[in-house]
């Protein structure tokens, strides 16, 4: 926290300023310097170029002069020779060593003079023997420049000029040719001229060296400039760094002097904000921060005063509030009491309502049950009616028939009809017994007589009774009674009824096979079972089987007669005698009914 956040902000701003300054300066300076150098360079280049041009043209001119002079000199010499030998023809002169020496003379470093007939333009004297006596027009294609100059001399006219020349190595160079006319003709009236040629750059070569030297000099100057320039750059950078350090130090000092009072201000202000209103800001600096501190202290003071006022005021209020609250409490108590009373009343109403609902439900249930019973009753009545009327029909019908003399006298028929009447009466009797049993059970007047029952003996009697029935239907009958069965204390008559009912049912619902009755002791009771190989009963009917009037089919489709009371009566008897009754069955295979009777009767 040397300079604080504020200080950092200021420092950053200043640094940015300086950096920008420096960059701009650097940029401007460098570009100015570069401009200056460029113009200097341009000037130097131009000067060099001018001097190069001047010197080269001077040299060129000089060269041309030399060539021209040479041509004219040779011309003069040849003129003298020809005039002093008037009888020599060209041919003669060609064979003349002396003339040859004069005619072909060096020009410059590499050139030579040559003499040509200016009418035919056939070269007569040349350094290269191949060219001697050659028609120069043949060179027109190869050296167009050369021919242009040469052709101008036809008829003895002076000419001069530059022409391009391609060296054997392929370099393009320029040659200068001056042609001077010889003012004398040979004995055979041939007029000739002298052509002096040489490479023109022979003369301008020195200027090349001169310009090369100039270039070198220029480069030296340039590299010096570079050094100076980088020197300037370094100086700028050094100045910048120095300035930067200075600025940073100054900034730090200045901002610290600003931050310190601010920090103190903040510390004190924090204390005040924590609640300690007696604290004063101790900053007394001679600037805006000091003024701020004064104002702040003033404000704190004011706050303290108003706080005290508020406290007093609130104390007064408290007192008043307490008084009022006491009054209100009293009122609330009164209200609560009446509310409680009302709640109690509502609770009572609620309870009454609930009771009403419960009794309503019970009523509904009993009503539904009654309706069910009504339906059951109707069904029972129609079944009972059928079970009653059918035997009666047979009895009445056959009895009427028996009034006929013919029938009475026929023993066979008479006995048959009487038998039928007997059977039907028995059937009626069974129905009556069942209904009576049921009503007795319902009325609670069913009497159970407990006595010692000799089970095997009773079973024997029952067996004999049922044997006939099974024989009639072609079924087998089998009794299996455990040896030494103990005497049971139970109602003999009821036991008989139960067994007969179960066996009867089995016979009714069995088409083939047989009935098996089993009796044996199990712990504290005797277990009876009646098993058949009949049509079986589906599991879904098990629970309803023992209910009253229950038959598996509807009244209009009775399976095999009966009122549906049998099993329910059996169940009542068994349970009243302290036992249990149940069954096992498989559709298509057969049914087995089981029931138990305790050795010692426990009545309900």
């Amino acid at each position, binding site marked *: 926290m040397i300079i604080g956040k504020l200080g950092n902000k200021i420092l950053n701003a200043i640094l940015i300023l300086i950096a920008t300054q420096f960059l701009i300066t650097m940029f401007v300076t460098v570009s100015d310097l570069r401009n200056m150098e460029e113009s200097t360079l341009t000037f130097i280049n131009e000067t060099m170029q001018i001097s190069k041009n001047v010197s080269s043209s001077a040299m060129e001119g000089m060269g041309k002069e030399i060539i021209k002079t040479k041509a004219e000199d040779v011309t003069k010499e040849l003129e003298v020779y020809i005039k002093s030998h008037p009888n020599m023809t060209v041919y003669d002169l060609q064979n003349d060593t002396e003339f040859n020496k004069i005619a072909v003379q060096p020009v410059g470093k590499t050139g030579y003079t040559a003499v040509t007939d200016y009418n035919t333009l056939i070269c007569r004297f040349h350094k290269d023997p191949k060219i001697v006596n050659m028609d120069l027009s043949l060179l027109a294609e190869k050296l167009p420049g050369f021919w242009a100059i040469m052709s101008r001399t036809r008829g003895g006219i002076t000419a001069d000029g530059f022409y391009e020349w391609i060296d054997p190595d392929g370099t393009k160079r320029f040659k200068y040719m001056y042609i001077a006319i010889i003012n004398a003709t040979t004995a055979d009236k041939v007029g000739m001229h002298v052509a002096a040629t040489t490479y023109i750059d022979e003369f301008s070569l020195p200027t090349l060296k001169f310009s090369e030297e100039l270039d070198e000099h220029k480069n030296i100057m340039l590299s010096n400039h570079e050094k100076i320039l980088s020197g300037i750059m370094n100086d700028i950078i050094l100045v910048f760094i120095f300035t930067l350090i200075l600025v940073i130090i100054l900034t730090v000092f200045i901002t610290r002097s600003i931050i310190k009072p601010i920090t103190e201000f903040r510390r004190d202000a924090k204390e005040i904000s924590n609640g300690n209103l007696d604290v004063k800001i101790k900053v007394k600096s001679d600037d805006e921060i000091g003024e701020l501190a004064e104002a702040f202290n003033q404000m704190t003071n004011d706050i303290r005063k108003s706080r005290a006022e508020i406290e007093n005021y609130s104390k007064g209020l408290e007192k008043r509030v307490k008084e009022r609250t006491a009054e209100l409490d009293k009122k609330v108590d009164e209200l609560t009491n009446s509310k409680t009373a009302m709640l109690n009343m509502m609770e009572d109403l609620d309870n009454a309502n609930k009771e009403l609902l419960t009794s309503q439900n019970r009523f509904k249930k009993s009503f539904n049950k009654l309706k069910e019973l009504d339906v059951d009753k109707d069904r029972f009545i129609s079944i009972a009616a059928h079970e009653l009327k059918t035997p009666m*029909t047979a009895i009445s019908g056959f009895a009427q028939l028996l009034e006929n003399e013919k029938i009475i006298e026929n023993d066979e028929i008479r006995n048959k009809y009487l038998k039928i009447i007997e059977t039907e009466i028995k059937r009626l009797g069974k129905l009556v017994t069942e209904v009576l049993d049921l009503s007795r059970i319902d009325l609670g007047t069913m009497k159970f007589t407990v006595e010692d029952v000799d089970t095997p003996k009773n079973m024997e009697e029952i067996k004999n009774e049922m044997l006939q029935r099974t024989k009639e239907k072609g079924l087998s009958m089998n009794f299996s009674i455990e040896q030494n069965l103990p005497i049971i204390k139970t109602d003999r008559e009821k036991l008989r009824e139960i067994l007969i009912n179960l066996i009867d049912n089995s016979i009714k619902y069995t088409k083939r096979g047989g009935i098996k009755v089993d009796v044996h002791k199990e712990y504290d009771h005797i277990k009876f079972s009646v098993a058949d190989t009949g049509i079986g009963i589906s599991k879904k009917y098990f629970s309803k089987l023992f209910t009253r009037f229950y038959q598996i089919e509807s009244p209009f489709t009775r399976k095999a007669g009966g009122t549906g009371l049998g099993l329910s009566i059996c169940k009542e008897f068994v349970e009243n005698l302290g036992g249990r009754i149940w069954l096992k069955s498989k559709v298509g295979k057969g049914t087995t009914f089981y029931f138990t009777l305790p050795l010692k009767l426990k009545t309900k």
Partner: protein
Amino acid sequence: MKKKIMIVDDEVNILELVKVILEQEGFEVIGVSSGKECLDKLKEVKPDLILMDMMMPSMSGREVTEKIRKNPKTKNLKVAFLTVARFSEVGMDMLKDLNVSDYITKPFDNADLVKRVKKLVGE
């Protein structure tokens, strides 16, 4: 030619009774003990009257009559109910819908049965 009467009743003794009563009067009686037997028999014979018991296992008398009416070969055969059920249990509508000609309750008076049968077959 003897009139043919078919009696449909699951009770063997009733079949026997009706057979004896009507045979005495010169009718030919065909006894069947179930709806199925009845419909099968109707493929072979065409009785002048069918006495139908209503309360039978498997197929009720009503069902059998419905089936008889549905079959175009048998739909015009005369049918009379012979049953323990009271008339109120059966209802006029059922009789009309099934085109049942008469309704005789059990138990019956033998002579009364004969009289009504003769009337039904047109004697």
